[in-house]
């Protein structure tokens, strides 16, 4: 188990390193990196400062090392629109995105897991068809279209919900539903198949044979075992969530990182784009590590497995 | 037959497979699959290789064909060392050395028609015209007893016995001088297996290729091989003509194998002289092999009814035991007396 985790940790660091290298190469390939990082209106002093800081007169490998030490010391470049530190600009947008993402995540869990369990327990019933229909819809209905449909109905036609901003609780309703629906669908689908798999196992028949009531069978045997595969997709959900938040924040003018990213790409604010990419990469790597940990903690076989058995 | 120069000869073959590491990054342990094996097959000769599962039979087959390389020792083809795999000569040797696998269900590509699969060996070596190749494949399929109606079918439409006939036909397309049969009937029903054995014997009479028949089925081996080598824990423990071996086995392990074959005729029940005692918790063959190797003694000692102190200390050497029967070699310190059986 330890060895497995160390292996994953190593891979995670490797991933972050790879993305940073990708950004480094891209910055060099896309023209004068100073232009990219500082923009057109940089003063000569700034250009001189950053030329010295990044050492653009030095050989490329030296620049590569400097790039990493610069990032490490917090020199992420500056936003040329208001001259502020790019990292700070991104950081102040994080809470809004975090609240939205967490709410949507909880929404999709609260909707998806019970729906999946119900669908598995009442297989081929109306509830099952509804859950699976929702799963297909959630996948096929693009979140930007869902958002616009809701805007049309709730804001423009019935005028019961605010269209944009993040001021009150009412502001959360449409973005959370838009962001969480596809997740709820896929979680429901996955929970259902995990439950069905578990319910066909011999130990479920044993539990039934020894007279456990259906509720107890579900709680004590089916759920703990079905939870293991469900946990693994939560990590994947986070990636979809981050990608989805870019769209949802744009549709509902949510003041978060996703909208900042879209605006920065449009305005070619490369310092901010770079900061967001690095931030997202680190978040994903850490999230995947946590899923691995959770997986090991949930599955006693993984917990007790010796280092040699990781295959 | 023993006089002719061997077509294939194994000299002191050893093959070990990496086992698990005891420590992270520590040295790997090794499982010896085959240890110090010497074998030779003369042109036209059928050599049987018997032993229980895990004794290294199949590994020896793969080594003899050159599909795997030994860790030490070598395989000689017509007296020359087996070429490296990258060597074009290795590829050319495939025409001469062919194989029939154990599992006929997996041995055919599920997405290719029977006739195409049998034609393929000729395609690989680009022999003759396309029409010519196809005609030869049809003839071979007919020769192994298949009706033309199955030629254009896919493998899943065939029975196990039919598939094995296809596999045999494919192996013979290049007119090999040596054919390895790796457990050719163990995946088949008994009656179908008997038909396949008869077919192999028949084809041997026609084509005269040398064969190595790997099997754990003694009655099958007895029915059509010329010479037998008995394998235990990766070593040859006894080797003799088929008649000699079955009539007068010298090694206690061979004796146990032969006694374990049921005889269908109650009037011919043989005297069970060996109660085949087993230790209470019988160690696995692999453990025994390690035990034998570590202790430097005979690998069979732990299961041997005649075991004595010497057996645990010194590995017996495979050698001629009986001047009257040259070629009957046994690796045992205390072999059964000559002609002890029946």
């Amino acid at each position: 188990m330890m060895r497995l985790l160390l292996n994953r940790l190593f891979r995670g660091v490797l991933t972050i390193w790879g993305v940073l290298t990708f950004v480094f190469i891209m910055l060099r390939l896309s023209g004068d990196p100073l232009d990219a990082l500082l923009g057109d209106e940089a003063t000569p002093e700034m250009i001189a400062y950053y030329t010295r800081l990044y050492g653009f007169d030095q050989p490329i490998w030296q620049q590569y090392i400097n790039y990493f030490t610069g990032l490490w010391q917090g020199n992420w470049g500056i936003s040329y629109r208001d001259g502020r530190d790019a990292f700070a600009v991104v950081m102040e947008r994080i809470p809004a995105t975090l609240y939205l993402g967490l709410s949507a995540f909880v929404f999709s869990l609260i909707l998806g897991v019970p729906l999946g369990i119900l669908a598995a327990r009442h297989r081929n019933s109306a509830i099952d068809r509804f859950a699976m229909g929702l799963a297909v819809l959630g996948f096929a209905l693009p979140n930007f279209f869902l958002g616009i449909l809701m805007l049309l109905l709730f804001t423009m036609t019935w005028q019961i919900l605010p269209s944009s901003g993040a001021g009150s609780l009412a502001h959360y309703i449409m973005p959370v539903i838009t962001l969480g629906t596809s997740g709820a669908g896929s979680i429901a689908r996955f929970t259902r198949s995990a439950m069905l798999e578990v319910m066909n196992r011999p130990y479920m028949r044993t539990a039934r044979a020894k007279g456990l009531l259906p509720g107890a069978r579900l709680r004590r045997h089916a759920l703990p075992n079905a939870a293991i595969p469900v946990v693994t997709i939560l990590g994947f959900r986070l990636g979809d969530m981050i990608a989805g938040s870019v769209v949802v924040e744009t549709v509902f003018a949510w003041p978060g990182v996703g909208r900042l990213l879209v605006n920065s790409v449009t305005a070619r604010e490369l310092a901010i784009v770079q900061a967001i990419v690095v931030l997202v990469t680190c978040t994903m790597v850490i999230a995947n590590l946590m899923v691995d940990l959770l997986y090991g903690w949930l599955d006693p076989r993984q917990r007790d497995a010796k280092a040699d058995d990781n295959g | 037959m023993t006089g002719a120069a061997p077509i294939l000869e194994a000299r002191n073959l050893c093959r070990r497979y990496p086992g698990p590491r005891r420590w992270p990054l520590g040295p790997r342990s090794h499982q010896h699959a085959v240890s110090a094996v010497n074998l030779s097959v003369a042109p036209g000769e059928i050599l049987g290789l018997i032993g229980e599962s895990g004794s290294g039979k199949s590994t020896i087959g793969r080594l003899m064909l050159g599909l795997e390389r030994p860790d030490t020792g070598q395989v000689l083809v017509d007296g020359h060392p087996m070429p490296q795999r990258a060597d074009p000569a290795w590829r050319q040797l495939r025409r001469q050395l062919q194989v029939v696998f154990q599992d006929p269900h997996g041995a055919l590509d599920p997405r290719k028609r029977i006739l195409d699969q049998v034609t393929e060996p000729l395609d690989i070596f680009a022999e003759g015209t396309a029409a010519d190749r196809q005609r030869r494949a049809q003839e071979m399929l007919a020769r192994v007893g298949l009706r033309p109606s199955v030629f254009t079918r896919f493998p899943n439409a065939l029975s196990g016995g039919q598939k094995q006939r296809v596999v045999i036909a494919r192996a013979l397309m290049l007119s090999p001088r040596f054919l390895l049969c790796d457990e050719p009937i163990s995946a088949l029903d008994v009656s179908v297996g008997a038909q396949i054995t008869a077919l192999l014997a028949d084809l041997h009479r026609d084509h005269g290729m040398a064969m190595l028949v790997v099997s754990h089925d003694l009655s099958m081996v007895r029915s059509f091989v010329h010479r037998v080598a008995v394998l235990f824990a990766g070593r040859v423990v006894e080797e003799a003509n088929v008649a000699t071996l079955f009539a007068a086995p010298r090694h206690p392990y061979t004796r146990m194998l032969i006694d374990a074959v049921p005889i269908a005729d109650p009037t011919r029940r043989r005297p069970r002289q060996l109660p085949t005692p087993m230790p209470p918790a019988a160690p696995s063959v692999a453990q025994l092999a390690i035990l034998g190797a570590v202790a430097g003694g005979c690998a069979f000692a732990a299961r041997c009814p005649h075991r004595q102190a010497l057996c645990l200390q010194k590995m017996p050497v495979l050698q001629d035991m009986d001047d009257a029967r040259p070629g009957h070699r046994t690796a045992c310190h205390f072999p059964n007396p000559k002609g002890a059986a029946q």
Partner: protein
Amino acid sequence: MAGSTHASAMQRQTTMAETSLRSTPFVVRLSLACLAVFVLGGLFAGWIAPHDPAAQNLMQRLAPPVFLGGDWTYPLGTDALGRDIFSRMLFATRMSLGVALLGTLIGAVIGTFLGFVAAQQNRVTSGVIMALVDAQAALPFQILVLAALALFGNALWLFVALVGIAGWETYARLIRGAVLSARTETYVQALEATGASAWRIHGRHILPNVANILIIQISLNFPSTILLETSLSFLGLGIQPPLTSLGEMLGSGRDHLLLAWWIAVVPGAAIFLITLSMSLVGDWLRDLLDPDS
């Protein structure tokens, strides 16, 4: 005797094919028909379109579609510049389907090739490929696409390439696994023992045997590719005017929701129908071709 067995086997096969056709679920047939309409519409956009998709008619801005009381000159109404939405839909469908098809194929070819390479014995190359697969699976690729578009500016070929690269890792992982398991099959060992070259073994035997997996994955991946293209175009970062795609139409229609909601809803519904039909067909194909999963 032999001939008659053969004939009856043939007969059995045809009846099986017929039953499978007849038992094709109604939803799947509907999806196929729906896809056919979009594909034909996109393919023959130039012939069908009643107007030049770029022609502006400022007198006829935001005209309603027929089902909202408009007239047949503009069957689906006009947009803010007075361009015919029906004609634009045809060309946008062509663009969206074309980019998605090209992108899916690029991903499938790269992924399949790298999957085959990663299944070879060389531990260094396969290690590098699998590390890349893991890295891509662990990253939201859409963010990286955005970064690349920001760095290089937008060009159609770059956009198509990026959309294509998005899906390669799934193909690589699936194909590698399938090739590795195919290689342990006895028939592959038999081919090696007969001196067949690696090209013959992989091209003529293993590839046809993993083709099912490939077809299923392509059909399942296609909707994701469409969604990637449309959502990027929707954000204004993908297909750029004067070119148009379904996502671009939806994105520009967003500004006129209050006055003319159909400008956004018509292309949105088209995206929804295409992805829905395609994923239903993909699920059906998977059940049909791969009963184990």
